[in-house]
């Protein structure tokens, strides 16, 4: 089973690397992770010598592992890059977000939101790390990537079962 999971981990790593490259993200968009999962399912089939069709359970499991792998690796890359450069998207876009939030009449809740964002931004600028930001980033990555990984798994299962295991 360990050997059968390696395509998912490798493809998740590949998706994480590609998602950190701005130009590639612009092209791949929301299809990058499902495409990585489809590729990992293909490698899974190669490892099992195309012996049997992919079950829904297997497809979803491989999609989940690809998504988790991508989430953890991309989170790790983001933390490292933020630590080195002491800046990230949050710090860069904070002034525009503040202007936008100030245009709405949100009262105290708006002020508190801006204060939390400023605290995270200051921590990143000063130390290159913010625990609140990193926790949110990891939670967000794990949730979104797992979901898109599972969707990719279902797409891959449909394609490969149709292509390799349908009697004509």
């Amino acid at each position, binding site marked *: 089973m360990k050997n059968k999971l390696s395509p998912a981990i490798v493809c998740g790593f590949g998706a994480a690397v590609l998602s950190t490259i701005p130009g590639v993200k612009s092209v791949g*968009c*929301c299809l990058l992770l499902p495409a990585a999962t489809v590729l990992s399912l293909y490698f899974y089939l190669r490892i099992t010598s195309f012996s049997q069709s992919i079950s829904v359970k297997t497809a979803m499991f491989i999609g989940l592992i690809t998504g988790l792998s991508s989430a953890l690796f991309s989170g790790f890359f983001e933390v490292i890059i933020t630590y080195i450069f002491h800046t990230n998207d949050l710090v860069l876009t904070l002034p525009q*977000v503040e202007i936008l*939030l100030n245009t709405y009449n949100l009262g105290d*809740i708006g002020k508190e*939101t801006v204060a939390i*964002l400023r605290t995270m931004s200051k921590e990143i600028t000063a130390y290159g790390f913010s625990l609140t930001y990193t926790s949110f980033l990891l939670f967000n990555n794990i949730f*979104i990537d797992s979901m898109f990984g599972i969707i990719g798994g279902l*797409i891959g299962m449909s394609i490969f079962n149709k292509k390799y295991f349908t009697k004509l």
Partner: protein
Amino acid sequence: MKNKLIIGLVLFLSMFWIAGFSIFSFLPKDNSFHVFYPILKMSYGRVCHQHLDKSFFVNGSYFLVCSRCTGIYIGSFIGLVTLLLPVKKYISSIFYYFVFFLVILMVDVVTNNFIFASYNKTTAFFTGYLFSFFAVYFIIFELKRNNFFHTSQREI
């Protein structure tokens, strides 16, 4: 019946997802939900480049995903809605429709990003829409063909 329940659940999640990226265009200015803007922007940023010049601008606010992603999500939503309608929907060549619109989508991605200087939001939206519409049909028909809904009904 069980398959409609599962499709309905996915439809609800899909509706929730679409609401998340488009809600700021339809909320009143003083609505306190606007405090979630930075969080939702970051969440959707995980799966979309969010370039403003490639996103729809509605009611003085940009959607949190690009026009292609908007098309993909709305296409899957409409696909799921039509699957729930009580009409016969079996299309024997659904796989070829799926592949055809996948190729069209890829051609549009390449031409929009590498050949033409200007980005066409309308073609991006419709290529995404058609691809995901048929992708949803393809997946559901394959699941039905593999007795997924039948099996889950028995197990439950």
